[in-house]
């Protein structure tokens, strides 16, 4: 028995979530008195995983898996879990990993807990803490099956080095043609821009910015910080910004290190989606805006004055600290 993680990658490189998952897995494995095995898909140099405590790496290399196909990937993870006799399978909470997690759980007849935050509350019975009610509460879930699948909430644990050495092994799971019923025709990615899912910092604008012509304010600040840009729901409903930037309970979730809200009132549905961000800053002209109740730092004032000044000052700060 060991603990299995799927170390997610894109374009031949591990995603940051893979290192967070490995760090988390190491700690859980210690509690359970076992080791961490990672399964990787089409990565030639996997050595980086060893830095975060992975003991064994199953390397899958197969051209059929060149593009992400949820069913086929889920099948690979299932076979890896069976080969290793894994009792706990850990997955991330990226869009792709969420897509395949439930398939893995059903295939392994495993109980599945998604949105897990923190280490297991107890290992016997096996209980984990999960985000629920759109970050307004936590739910302690007990998993009663022999095999357990956990989805770790993004940015909820952190990345910790735990240098060791990992053995590497080529793994050739059976690839089932029936797993390719959904075929990708084309992929569109915003080029050169940080995505909300991957960003450490998100700069978000609301209706207080008055119109799409003022978004230069948000973009300039974001570019100085290497941040992704986001917006409140009405801003995307009004067509000022694309829907892909809508964050909140009915939009994208944000769990970043720093979330800067500009001209956003802080409605309950907005906060629900961004509340797992570690540090929140609000800039709003109305001192009564509800966002001030959930923010760590706040500035009361006119965004049109403050944001350009802040951008200039951060530029100088960055120049000094790089």
């Amino acid at each position, binding site marked *: 028995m060991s603990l299995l993680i799927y170390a997610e990658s894109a374009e031949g490189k591990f995603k940051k979530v893979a290192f967070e998952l490995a760090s988390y897995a190491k700690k859980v494995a210690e509690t359970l008195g076992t080791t961490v095995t990672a399964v990787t898909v089409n990565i030639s140099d996997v050595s980086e995983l060893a830095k975060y405590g992975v003991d064994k790496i199953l390397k899958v290399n197969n051209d059929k898996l060149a593009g992400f196909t949820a069913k086929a990937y889920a099948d690979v993870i299932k076979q890896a879990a069976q080969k290793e006799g894994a009792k706990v399978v850990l997955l991330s909470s990226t869009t792709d990993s969420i897509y395949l997690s439930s398939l893995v*759980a059903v295939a392994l007849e495993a109980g599945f807990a998604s949105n897990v935050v923190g280490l297991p509350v107890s290992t016997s019975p096996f209980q984990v803490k999960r985000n629920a009610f759109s970050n307004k509460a936590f739910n302690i879930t007990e998993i009663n099956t022999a095999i357990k699948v956990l989805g770790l909430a993004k940015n909820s644990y952190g990345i910790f080095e735990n240098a060791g050495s990992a053995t590497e092994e080529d793994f050739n799971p059976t690839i089932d043609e029936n797993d390719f019923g959904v075929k990708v025709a084309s992929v569109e990615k915003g080029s050169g821009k940080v995505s909300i899912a991957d960003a450490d910092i998100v700069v978000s604008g609301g209706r207080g910015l008055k119109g799409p012509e003022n978004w230069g304010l948000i973009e300039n600040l974001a570019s100085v910080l290497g941040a992704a840009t986001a917006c409140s729901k009405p801003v995307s409903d009004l067509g000022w910004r694309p829907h892909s930037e809508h964050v909140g309970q009915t939009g994208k979730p944000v769990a970043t290190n720093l979330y800067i809200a500009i001209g956003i009132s802080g409605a309950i549905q907005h906060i629900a989606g961004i509340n797992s961000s570690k540090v929140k800053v609000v800039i709003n002209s109305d001192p009564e805006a509800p966002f001030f109740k959930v923010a760590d730092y706040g500035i009361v004032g006119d965004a049109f004055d403050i944001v350009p000044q802040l951008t200039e000052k951060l530029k100088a700060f960055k120049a000094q600290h790089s």
Partner: protein
Amino acid sequence: MKILVCISHVPDTTSKINFSNGDSEFDTNGVQYVINPNDEFGLTRAIWFQEQQGANVTVVNVGGPDTEPTLRKALAIGANEAIRVNANPTDGFFVAKQLAEVIKNGGYDLVIAGKESLDYNGGMVPGMIAGILGSNFLNSCTAITVEGNNVNAVREIDGGKETVNTTLPLIIGGQKGLVEEKDLRIPNMRGIMTARTKALTILEPVDAPVNTKAVKFEKPAPKSAVKLVAADNLDELINLLHNEAKVI
């Protein structure tokens, strides 16, 4: 085309979240229930298929009798019929198992669920149904068209989107984008009247293992008060973000 739309009955997004019975149960006191927003986008797209392509739309919920007003609302919006599986939706797999049974017996071509429900946020039901039935599955689906058996759809991915081709039978986890916000429908009087006469079938659940159970709930620790920084002292904000919060 036979479409099944899975409807989750969830607290309105403005609800205060409290727990009762020693923090072991969600406190429904004073809570208004609505159609889960992700499911509402899916339902509206299903009605589009009904109106434009003659599809037949059934809505289904796994829940107690208290969820019937939510199903009636879906009927008032335009669904042809409703099914309620009479059981407490204890965990994602239990619900998926019930829905898979309904799908098997009903011969649905397209199953539209929401990519997650806004109460437990599990995000697992559509994928589990697909896992149980072995059908094609697309999650985070933001657009879908069907011609004959062929499906063209869009999936949101981190940082972009991908267009996919697949075939029926298909299960999707849907979200905003399936229709625009402005296309969501509020039931009108005629809809509400006809909904009363539409069939709402009650089915008893099939056996399913109890894989997981919610044993307790907790509320987040109260937050410390915001630190206000004067608008003419932006250096202080940078200092705090750098030295105290350590995020820049």
